[in-house]
């Protein structure tokens, strides 16, 4: 069954159509990659799904619930989380604290309970910490847990963002260029990590320029160009489609 259904989604930015009348579906447990040249509307699509911007037209349904135009925190509450192309880590906090923010939704205690230090608060805090440590372990950053996040190397910051997103235990995870700026070794580690995620109950949406990575890990690929869907299929089909090669792969593939 489809987890995410997008219909006729359209968004203009002052005359420029970033996403034009786009429709597609994503099934549970898939790794779906979005490729296309810069300006094809990939990040805009992610921003629309996570509610950071509102569509001009069209609907987004997640688990059959209409989430079109909902605020980001409501959408997140339904189980969608993401990473960012330009890293958005919480500077000034440690590595583990960053991941604990990701696990925010696993807590229930409010401001007053926290202020008056109700008995449940400490217990909940331990629970969140455990969740966070579990995710840090998955990305191999356990030993860095108390380091201020700003001084972490770039590649590890990318991994940390994924760990933070995972800490929410979302149903669907949107990764925006997770391999950007990573070297080959790091990219391989990343690829292995992403492959494991569906088994943990996560459906993955991926925007990426690294074709090797995409071809290796994705189940399904959507090719975008100028805000519209150009082609859709499995990696093999995409590689052999003339239109795609002409529009995109031909020039970009290394």
């Amino acid at each position, binding site marked *: 069954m489809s987890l995410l259904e997008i219909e006729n989604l359209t968004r203009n930015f002052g005359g420029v159509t970033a996403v034009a009348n786009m429709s597609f579906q994503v099934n549970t447990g898939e790794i779906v990659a979005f490729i296309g040249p810069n300006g094809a509307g990939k990040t805009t699509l992610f921003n629309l799904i996570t509610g950071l911007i509102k569509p001009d037209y069209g609907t987004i349904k997640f688990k059959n619930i209409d989430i079109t135009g909902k605020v980001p925190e409501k959408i997140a509450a339904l189980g969608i989380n993401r990473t960012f192309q330009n890293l958005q880590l919480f500077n000034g906090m440690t590595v583990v604290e960053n991941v*604990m923010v990701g696990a925010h939704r696993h807590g229930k205690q409010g401001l007053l309970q926290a202020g008056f230090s109700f008995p449940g608060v400490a217990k909940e805090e331990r629970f969140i910490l455990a969740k966070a440590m579990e995710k840090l372990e998955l990305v191999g950053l356990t030993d860095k847990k108390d380091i201020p996040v700003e001084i972490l*190397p770039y590649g590890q910051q990318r991994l940390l963002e994924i760990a933070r997103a995972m800490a929410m235990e979302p149903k669907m995870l949107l990764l925006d260029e997770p391999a950007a700026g990573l070297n080959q070794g790091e990219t391989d580690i990343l690829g292995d990590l992403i492959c494991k995620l569906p088994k943990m109950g996560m459906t993955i949406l991926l925007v990426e320029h690294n074709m090797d990575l995409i071809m290796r890990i994705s189940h399904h690929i959507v090719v975008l160009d100028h805000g519209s869907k150009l082609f859709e299929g499995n990696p093999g089909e995409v590689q052999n489609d003339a239109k795609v090669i002409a529009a995109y792969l031909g020039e970009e593939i290394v």
Partner: protein
Amino acid sequence: MKTKSTKGFLQRNLSIIFFIAIVILIALLIPNPYYLGNFVIIGIFTIVVVGLCLLMGYTGQVSLGHAAFYGLGAYSSALLTAKVGFTPLLAMVIAAVITGIVAFLIGIATLRLKEHYLALATLGSGIIIYIFFNEQVNITGGPSGFSGIPYFSFGSWQFDTERSYYFLVWSFVLLAIIFARNIVSSRIGRALRAIHTSEIAATCMGIPAFQYKVQIFVISAIYASIAGSLYAHYITFMSPSPFGFQASVEFVLMAAIGGLASIWGPLFGVTAVLFLTEFLKTVVPEIMPSAGGEYEIIFFGLILVIVMIFMPEGLVGGIKDYFAKGKIKKLAIKVNQDLAEFPENDLPSDRNKGVQ
């Protein structure tokens, strides 16, 4: 940098115990009620500034209107005790509720604004409230004010000496600090800091940023309100002038001098600012016998500028930085060594400096 559960009760609360010891020590060492009175004012301001730091330092939302909440607390307490006849404690609670409601309304209206626009909106709200104090002559007595506010009391226990008031105020400071510390070290506190660095990322993590901003705005207004109530029962005379725009700016100054993102910062900030003023008042005329108040103002301004240039994180931040530098450096070296396995990688970068 540390997680709560890994430390023992004593260690966790060492600073609090230390704080209590100092408060008692000051009371023992200062026999003169006047000097103790200075500490009463320091305590009252500290409560306001702790609330302000929660809002500004942790959540990153500027408020240039906090003196109005301080005033709302003071006026509500003063009016309810002097004119309606409530007990001070009950009046204080009602004052906090009134201020909380007003702050809630202002908060939901203004907290969607950013930085300078938010600063201006809070400034405007503060000035409107201040004008209200001035103009509602039938209720507030207008610019002439009114007196006859009773001293603070718990049942038959009157706080009418400097010493007793000192202990009363500093007990509230203690509660204020503990409450703030509990918030900051909780899940909510982390969420607030996350909102500060990247509101977008925070909302994508499912943090209801706007709701939290409003909540913390209300809490910090209630801090100001409680401080205002304490002020009213201490001075026992009420008029609008201490609650104007300048007072709001002064609170922000004290917060910034102490260190915005710190629970102990306010204590240092308020003490530093008030003592600096007193200190300049005594020292300047001794160095320059002909000097009037002008030199104090000049020095005060300059010292403020110098502190902010050299310690942009405030006194507490500056001291912390001084000791943390070595540790961070060591960490950075260690991290870079780990990195040697991937020689072509870039070093810690500021590429993620955040939202443009």
